[in-house]
């Protein structure tokens, strides 16, 4: 199919497909991308974004971020906002890994201090943060305790001694989505999640030690405010979500919605993964409450992982984590649906903004930002491939065009299966080690799936978000150590 003929440029890095591209579209599709990223986009992204444009109550447009790629139901890198009265909520618009997200952590350490201890650190992290299929965590929670986690999110973790109040301040929504109701969660989800707090999972989840090289600083002023203020500074970044708990919540409600959608709500969707329910329906409200539980489980998970990171660094360097300056820069979700206030046609409205593989990017001055970042805009963490590095960016006022959303990663260009055919995990491991990146992988086959060539050029993605006005580049961070799930 290639690029649809009806696609027209409407901005420097913005393209639009008018309704009419596919039957039933209520709004246009808008794709934020450079010419090169657009040319490489999966055909299916246009089809999937157009399918999203058919959903009831969608406002303004079905949006694709510069890292968009073919997903299940909604495209990955998809953003869609729905009117709270007439709109729907869709598990497929959030993803099975609810509140999959990124946390960036700064340290006072310089690369020269870390380099001789790199192997100890990576191996220590691999031990302390279980990764891979079916690996359980170090905290044995009762179901009662897990329910408290679901209500309180990262605040529960900090209350139990695994973190600081500052960690919460620098976490999206303070690490707790309001509206979580554990009574809307199945026993199966509880059973699946009870042993998984503090675990990385598998697939594209990782924990990295990274270095900020002088040439990686794009905005020295914002970089300083975000705590990246030292030459050759070492930081830690990790990517993970709500683990099996969130997967089960999404599965339960997807199946429930599919059963009742045509009969109870008279809704038909072009792909069953777009199963949805009116936001105001019992089913819609209960899914939202359960989804918030999963989001909170994920915030708690990343908070506990940070605690383990602090323990490992502290042990290896023989100094207290606070003395090492280990502090959260920001923790941000990229698979959620949130009620937010946005200007639509000059009027402020409450919308339910679905972001699936897309990061919230609030602008300077936004009231939900912590005071320290009120003037900078919200930090945005874009995880690249383990070979190419990652980005720290900041939200911008011009991001109103995307309901203040931006990219979340590089975006895959080839399937896992294709990547495995191109490189053997063992060879990739050797290549990474030769480049000075120490890797501990739970699965060599899984490692091959995450090779740099399987992803878009993260530099191009970060630049495109800037050209489109969605976010502003602050720093590029290069991996030196990687624990791969």
């Amino acid at each position, binding site marked *: 199919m290639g690029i649809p003929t009806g696609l027209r440029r409407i901005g420097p890095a913005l393209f639009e497909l008018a309704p009419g591209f596919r039957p039933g579209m209520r709004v246009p599709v808008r794709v934020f991308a450079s010419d090169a990223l657009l040319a490489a986009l999966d055909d299916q992204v246009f089809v999937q974004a157009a399918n999203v444009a058919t959903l009831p109550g969608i406002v303004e447009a079905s949006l694709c971020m510069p890292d968009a790629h073919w997903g299940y139901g909604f495209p990955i890198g998809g953003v869609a906002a729905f009117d709270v009265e007439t709109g729907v909520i869709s598990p497929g618009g959030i993803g099975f890994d609810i509140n999959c997200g990124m946390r960036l952590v700064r340290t006072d350490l310089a690369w020269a201090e870390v380099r001789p201890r790199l192997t100890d650190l990576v191996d220590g992290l691999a031990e302390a943060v279980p990764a891979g299929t079916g690996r359980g965590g170090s905290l044995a929670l009762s179901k009662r305790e897990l329910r408290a986690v679901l209500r309180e999110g990262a605040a529960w973790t900090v209350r139990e001694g695994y973190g600081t109040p500052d960690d919460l301040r620098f976490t999206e929504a303070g690490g707790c989505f309001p509206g979580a109701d554990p009574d809307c969660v199945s026993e199966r989800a509880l059973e699946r999640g009870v042993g998984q707090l503090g675990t990385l999972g598998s697939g594209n989840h990782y924990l990295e030690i990274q270095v900020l090289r002088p040439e990686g600083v794009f905005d020295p002023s914002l970089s300083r405010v975000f705590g990246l203020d030292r030459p050759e500074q070492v930081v830690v970044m990790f990517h993970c979500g709500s683990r099996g708990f969130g997967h089960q919540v999404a599965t339960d409600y997807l199946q429930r919605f599919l059963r009742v959608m045509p009969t109870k709500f008279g809704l038909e969707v072009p*792909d069953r993964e777009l199963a949805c329910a009116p936001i105001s329906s019992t089913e819609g409200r209960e899914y939202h409450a359960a989804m918030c539980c999963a989001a909170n489980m994920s915030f708690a998970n990343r908070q506990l992982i940070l605690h383990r990171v602090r323990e490992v660094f502290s042990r290896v360097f023989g100094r207290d984590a606070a003395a090492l300056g280990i502090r959260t820069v920001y923790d941000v979700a990229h698979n959620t649906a949130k009620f937010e206030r946005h200007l639509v046609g000059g009027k402020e409205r409450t919308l339910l903004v679905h972001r699936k593989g897309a990061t919230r990017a609030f602008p300077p001055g936004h009231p939900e930002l912590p005071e320290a970042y009120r003037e900078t805009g919200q930090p945005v963490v874009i995880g690249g491939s383990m070979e190419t590095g990652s980005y720290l960016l900041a939200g911008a006022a011009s991001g109103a065009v995307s309901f203040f959303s931006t990219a979340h990663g590089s975006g*895959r260009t080839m399937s896992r299966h294709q990547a495995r055919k191109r490189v053997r995990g063992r060879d990739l491991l050797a290549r990474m080690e030769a480049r000075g990146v120490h890797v501990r992988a739970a699965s060599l086959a*899984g490692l091959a799936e995450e090779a740099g060539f399987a992803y878009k050029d993260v530099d191009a993605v970060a630049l495109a978000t800037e050209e489109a006005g969605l976010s502003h580049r602050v720093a590029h961070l290069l991996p030196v150590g990687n624990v791969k799930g």
Partner: protein
Amino acid sequence: MTFTFVEGATSDVSFEARGATLPDLFAAAAEALLAATLANPEAVEERVRQPLALAEPDLELLLLRFLNELVFLRDARGLLLHAHGLAIEQNGEVKLAGELAGEPIDRARHRLEGDVKAATAHGLAVAREDGGWRASVTLDV
């Protein structure tokens, strides 16, 4: 009873399963799920057995529910399972009964590769083909 992995959604794993009968088709889909989870599915021995009974409004939802039962049992209870002796009855709603047989994960023998999060409804299809049945499924990994 066969399955093949096919190109599908970029981040995920898609497969097509085939069977002479619906029970064969569902058993093939269970084998595909097992093959997406570990490199050596043939190493899964049948040491534990448990019954399974499900009902859904249509065949596609039944397949989705069936695969997600297997995902749940692996992730929550650490069980790797084959499906046996399935019976599928279509009478208004669609019912499945049968037995799952397998064993707990043993990292010394089972080479785990993919952490399947869920079977998705994306492109989900169950259809008759050449006198038998074919299913298309995408797994979120």
